[in-house]
């Protein structure tokens, strides 16, 4: 059914690549869009910076603005030492931003509306923080869980709550992106569906359909904002978490 709001999130196999341990490994529409996003981002940036003009042209300016934006974000949140993670943050930001924007083109698939994708991205950040935190700070990394100035008799409880808070990071990190994209696209589809349904009721329906039409236009603008903001939030949280790995309690 065309008006089914969930239909747009279906995963479809394009080709089956093979089988590993009885599990089918397929090239799906989701994988195709991820590949397209990587090609678009990498190819676009290579082409934009190919000229290396002293006075940047239009496309080169865009590339430089994106670089400056992410570099400022990393420096502000994680300090100069955080710049070693710039490639990771820039990759995450551009990948999610392009995937979100692809999703805003009618008829295209929204990869970030699947929690399995966002959860893997969040877990990459989570394990990067843990591994680099122990590699750089050794056991001092555990000071992340011990706030200073706490009386000794409630310290175990506080430490346990801090650990819970730390473990809940990948959950909120992934659920936020996935839920916002999923809910936004469903809302858009439902309101657009109202227009079609109402316009089936004759003249009164046509007049009534103006309200959901206006709402759909407004929601589309909002969704573009959310698509950018979610990529931004994901990247800035990555910076904040990496900051903990760099300086756990100084």
């Amino acid at each position: 059914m065309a008006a089914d709001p969930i239909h747009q999130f279906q995963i479809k196999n394009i080709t089956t690549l093979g089988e590993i341990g009885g599990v089918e490994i397929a090239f799906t529409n989701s994988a195709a869009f991820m590949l397209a996003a990587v090609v678009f981002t990498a190819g676009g940036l290579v082409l934009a910076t190919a000229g290396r003009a002293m006075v940047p042209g239009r496309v080169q300016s865009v590339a430089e603005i994106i670089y400056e934006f992410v570099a400022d974000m990393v420096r502000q949140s994680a300090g100069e030492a955080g710049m070693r993670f710039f490639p990771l943050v820039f990759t995450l930001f551009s990948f999610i931003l392009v995937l979100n924007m692809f999703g805003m083109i009618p008829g295209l698939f929204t990869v970030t509306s699947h929690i399995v994708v966002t959860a893997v991205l969040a877990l990459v950040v989570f394990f990067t923080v843990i591994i680099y935190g122990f590699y750089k700070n050794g056991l001092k990394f555990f000071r992340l869980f011990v706030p200073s100035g706490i009386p000794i008799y409630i310290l175990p409880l506080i430490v346990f709550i801090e650990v819970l808070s730390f473990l809940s990071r990948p959950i909120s990190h992934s659920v936020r992106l996935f839920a916002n994209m999923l809910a936004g696209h469903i809302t858009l589809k439902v309101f657009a569906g109202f227009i079609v349904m109402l316009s089936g009721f004759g003249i009164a329906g046509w007049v009534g359909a103006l309200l959901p039409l206006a709402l759909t236009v407004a929601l589309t603008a909002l969704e573009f904002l959310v698509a950018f903001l979610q990529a931004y939030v994901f990247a800035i949280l990555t910076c904040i978490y990496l900051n903990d790995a760099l300086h756990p309690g100084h």
Partner: protein
Amino acid sequence: MAADRPPEDRRARDADDDAALQARLRQLGQQLDAIAPKPKPGDSDASSGQPPGPSNLARALRLSSEFVAGILLGGFIGWLVDQFTGWSPWGLIVFLLLGFVAGTLNALRSAGLVARPGQD
């Protein structure tokens, strides 16, 4: 009596009151600034010094999910504890409450109201 005074006099007295009020407000503001925790460079999401950009709306979008994530995790750990120890339902109750606390801590921290551990 106040009603007998010429209008200029009354206007002057109003201006005096205004000036006194302004001075008191300024003093209160300074006292509050002295008490309230300063945003530290580390938790940049508490960004009072940052230029007005997408960061304020971004912070607003974060709050609810930080809270929910703590509760979900607490509930999940509690459920696991119940499964493996047979303390049902105490594991779920205790860990759900602890998750609630962690979620509140997460939300307050992302609002910049609680310092990160070790940063003071």
